[in-house]
């Protein structure tokens, strides 16, 4: 029978606490439900535990391609029925794929809850039966066009080029999520079906529902609609230990449809389950979250700097710290990198002030609170909490961890990160890569 575990670990007075319920179905699907009654809307968020990092050689891009194929019909909702029926009911939907996950989300009026669960469970239970060679071939064209469009946009190749530099070839995050042209073009319907069977098991999925629903009723309806989705063993995921690292610094260059010269300095960083993550998040905030932060001051002080940013990102098996700056003067490129390096080294060498820490901390708290403003954001946040921490109220724990970070820790963690070999990526306007202070080392995107 249904295993119910009601979880409300935080006190009701805590604004970050959510009155959520978690259940696990006999087939392994985990469900998290929370009420949100300001409108009649319901948000559904389905996480599937497969991302680009799980692809094998020869199937690079299949996780993301599958995100498209999930809208191509299932056994009892053929063709574009998922879209058509949900839209007719007043709903909308979309999906995304990352290195770590594939996620499907929809919002709809509460009266369409059964329809949405019917559609979601049908494709999770029966998609391979409906998958045709024609729809696979068509969606390959669409994805190749998505890739071409993304890479043609200014700075559209930066992130993929950077991940190829930061993570070595044997790292699961090395290949772009969009995949390789060769592997995409070689994908067959049989290959796609095998991928689905391997990864789309209910035990590897988490379903979130937030909206104008009674949580008991919602869980009962999920149990009903997903009861015929067969249980399958979850496929073990790729998480190599130790995580592959570059032995030495690495450089790359990209010629792009831009007017400025940009330098990205990046390092591997703590993953989501690393206790150092919170200190690094605050470091990035101290460097560049708003007016008066350290990189922002650089932008205002140096007339030749046209932009700065710092970002600390944490994935399931690894993270990345990226510092970026741009200039409109090629002759200032070397000074640009020096300024960026000095700023990060200064923070690594001396603890930030209490004011700086508190400001970054409160910005982070505002970010946590912001995920609870809308049913769709809350559904995604709850699903992430359940899949990563097994606790729908992980935002409370996140805040506690952020609140406990001391200024000296921020510097110490930052030192540990930037003492690793760095990746450096220069972006130059087309035809002007020779003006960079480094020799051209084009980063190929496969």
């Amino acid at each position: 029978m249904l295993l119910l575990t009601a979880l409300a670990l935080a006190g009701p007075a805590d604004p970050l606490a959510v009155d959520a319920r978690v259940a696990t179905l006999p087939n392994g699907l985990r469900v998290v439900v929370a009420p949100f009654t300001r409108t009649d809307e319901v948000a559904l968020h389905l996480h599937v535990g497969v991302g680009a990092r799980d692809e094998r050689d020869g199937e690079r891009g299949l996780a993301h391609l599958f995100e498209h194929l999930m809208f191509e019909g299932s056994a009892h909702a053929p063709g574009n029925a998922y879209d058509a029926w949900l839209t007719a009911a007043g709903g909308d939907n979309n999906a995304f794929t990352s290195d770590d996950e594939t996620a499907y989300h929809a919002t709809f009026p509460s009266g369409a809850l059964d329809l949405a669960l019917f559609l979601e469970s049908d494709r999770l239970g029966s998609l391979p039966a409906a998958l045709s060679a024609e729809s696979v071939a068509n969606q390959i064209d669409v994805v190749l066009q998505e890739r071409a469009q993304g890479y043609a946009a200014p700075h559209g190749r930066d992130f993929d080029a950077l991940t190829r530099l930061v993570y070595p070839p044997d790292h699961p995050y090395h290949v772009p999520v969009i995949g390789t042209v060769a592997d995409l073009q070689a994908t067959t319907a049989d290959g796609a079906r095998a991928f689905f069977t391997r990864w789309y098991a209910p035990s590897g999925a988490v379903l979130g529902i937030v909206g104008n629903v009674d949580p008991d009723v919602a869980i009962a309806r999920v149990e009903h609609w997903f009861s015929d989705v067969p249980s399958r063993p979850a496929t073990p995921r790729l998480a190599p230990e130790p995580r592959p690292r570059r032995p030495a610094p690495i450089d790359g260059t990209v010629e792009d449809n831009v007017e400025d010269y940009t330098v990205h300095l990046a390092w591997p960083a703590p993953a989501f389950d690393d206790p150092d993550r919170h200190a690094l998040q605050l470091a990035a905030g101290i460097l560049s979250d708003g007016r008066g932060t350290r990189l922002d001051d650089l932008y205002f002080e140096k007339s030749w700097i046209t932009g700065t940013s710092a970002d600390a990102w944490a994935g399931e098996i690894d993270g990345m710290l990226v510092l970026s700056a741009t200039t409109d003067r090629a002759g200032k490129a070397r000074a640009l990198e020096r300024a960026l390096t000095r700023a990060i080294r200064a923070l690594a060498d001396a603890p930030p002030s209490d004011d700086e820490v508190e400001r970054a901390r409160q910005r982070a708290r505002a970010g946590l609170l912001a995920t609870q403003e809308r049913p769709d954001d809350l559904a995604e946040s709850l699903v992430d909490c359940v899949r990563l921490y097994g606790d729908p109220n992980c935002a409370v724990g996140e805040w506690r961890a952020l609140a406990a970070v001391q200024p000296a820790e921020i510097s110490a963690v930052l030192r540990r990160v930037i003492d690793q070999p760095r990746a450096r990526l220069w972006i130059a306007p087309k035809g002007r890569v020779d003006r960079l202070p480094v020799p051209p080392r084009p980063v190929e995107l496969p």
Partner: protein
Amino acid sequence: MNALLALLALLGSALAEPDAAPAPPDRSRPPPVAPAEPLDLPDPEVLALRPGVTVHHVQVPGLRKSRIDLYFRQGGLGVDGRMTAAYTAMAWLQDQRTRAYPAERVASIEALGDLDVWTDGDLLVTTAQLEAPPEGLDEGLALLRDVVVAPRWSRQDLRLLARNSLRRVLSEGPTLAADLIDAGLSYGWFPKDHPLAPRPDVKGWHGVRVRHLAPRHAAVLGSPVDVVVVSSEPLDALRPRLEALLEGVGAEGPLPEPPTFDRPEGRRVLAVDLAGTPQVAIGVRYAAPRFDDPDSPAFVLLDHAVGGTFLSRLNGVLREEKGLTYGIGSSLTTAMGHGHWSITTEVAADRTGEALDAIFAVIDGVVADGLTADEVADGATDAARRWNRTLATVGSAAGVYGARVRHGRDGAALRARLDATRSVAPADTRAVAERWIGPDSPRLLILVGDRRRIEPALEARGLEASWIPAELLILGGP
């Protein structure tokens, strides 16, 4: 009796076969959907604080933050007769620093209090806005007041803004396909010097100085002001704080008239050569009914069905059937004084002609047959869904009620319009399509990409383009 029935039901369930498996879901047909009817949205409580200063308060239970939006009824048109660099700089830089606080302190107050204060300006209004949680509301209102009545303009901020604005137009714009499409659709549609398509004020950005901003600020402060408040707190609790916020701010005066524009004549094709680019960006614009035009409700449905969703006709053909694009969409502008409807997409350069054929075949199909009953029903459902989302967040509520105030629309009129949209018949859409996007309707087509790939595609279709240098188009065209 009910208790007895309940007891019997309980006994019945207890006596049921303990291992009886629940019935599997019936997948023979989609489950029925309880249709969502439009919600009754509250009308704002209106309070005239004094002549020229009006508060519109909407109480929404359960909101984490309050939102206070000040709409000064004086924008670039009233201040300078058009959107100028000086007016834009005044509106954009107002929230950067005040006489009391340097920029860093303003940012710090916002971060520590989870506050957001920002200012903006457009053709008709200048806005100042605050979002604040209950515990930070007083501090937020104090900061908002400071920003509104005592901003401090800095030469450094102005220099950076001018530099970035000029770079955006002069350096980046000519290289960005999306910017060129926007520029082409706007400047190719509206006549030169029309206020609805202000050309970049390059001369103004070169010459703007701090001394130019204060007079414009004074003009704005002395205009009528509407204050839209969305909060879980009642108006009585907020009134003293609103009075303090608005002391000495706003005055009676005429409200600006929105500019009008009917439609251009004929059909034009503009093209921009970005040599060597692998993608071609395409934009198409038609005239569309104004907000108060009787054709407007049907055109809303037409927009939704043709380019409004993944399921739209354009996506169905160009994306799902032909794999030509990652996505194609339409957008409808229905202002009080004008309306237009645009389609934009990107395709691989060597499939430009195929994409043009597919786009215009979809348009021709709608003109010939109108929308299907299903498409009309979907559009009507979507209109109700958007209506029902009004109170989802403090931002969505503030946006909807702010637009009502700005455009002088009351709740009953908007509800009547929603009802009109929901009662459009499929036959209506055919007639409306014929009037607005039929073969004789004015149309602007713009393509941005490699001329060697675009030109043959146009020639094969008998289309002659005016080729415009990117640097010229981004400044407003010839």
